[in-house]
């Protein structure tokens, strides 16, 4: 796997994360579930920043960044706080795995970026009810 392939793969993952978090945010109320709303909003902003950073890395390498899909699969029922929380937890676990993959295939500042993102995803799992794990991302 080349570094460019790894970056493109992770960017594709972040496109999906931004889309799904956007949908989760729309299902979350700032007044009735303020803690979850804050966690989802923060996660959404973080994934937007990561998507943009990955896009910049690819532009800097004279590569065309992979585009977002028109849409991504969402759960049928996101009407409850529990469903949103469960979905967000799954998303962070999956993104942690994507960044672990990035770490394995890149070096230098790009690997550092992957490590930082993996640690953030691991901490963020806790915001969505996850329990500590032995090897987050693997």
């Amino acid at each position: 796997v080349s570094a460019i392939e790894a970056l493109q793969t992770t960017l594709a993952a972040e496109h999906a994360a931004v889309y799904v978090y956007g949908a989760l945010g729309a299902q979350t109320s700032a007044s009735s579930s303020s803690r979850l709303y804050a966690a989802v909003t923060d996660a959404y902003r973080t994934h937007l920043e990561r998507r943009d950073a990955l896009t910049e890395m690819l532009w800097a390498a004279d590569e065309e960044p992979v585009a977002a899909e028109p849409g991504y699969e969402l759960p049928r029922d996101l009407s409850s706080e529990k469903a949103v929380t469960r979905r967000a937890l799954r998303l962070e676990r999956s993104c942690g795995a994507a960044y672990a993959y990035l770490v394995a295939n890149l070096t230098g500042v790009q690997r550092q970026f992957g490590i930082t993102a993996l640690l953030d995803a691991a901490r963020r799992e806790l915001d969505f009810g996850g329990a500590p794990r032995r090897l987050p991302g693997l």
Partner: protein
Amino acid sequence: VLAATAGTAALVAAGCDQLSTGPTDTTSSGAVPTTEPAVDADGELTDQVTLALAEAAAVAGATAAGFAALAPAGEEFLRLHEAHGRLLGGLPDVGEPDVPGRRKRARRALLTTESRLQQELVDASMNAGSGALAQTFAAMAAAVAQLHTVWSGS
């Protein structure tokens, strides 16, 4: 974990959100194959990491033994470091650590030790020649970060 393989095609097709959930995904992780031989420098790096894990485990164990109120945290860190040590071939013996005599200071020393270990794991990941080893060290750092978050807030 270390024998798992990457689902690159599945990742590209579905994004990270689907990494471990699709029926065609034969893995549950983003781990890469570890059949590649570790370069010599990685052996030295692994020795440094196992020593750091052993020292952190000793602090966690001594803290748990010395303060009943800190036992849950100390024991959880100890179990984590021992599990990570087993992945790397076992932890070396280290001497008894100095643990502060007061609970608050002991708690602070425990969390400081864990923060230091987390940074050592991040540095080791950065310096690993093998991608698989880099990934493993980063995942270990992430696990320490999770426990630190849990226990620093309590």
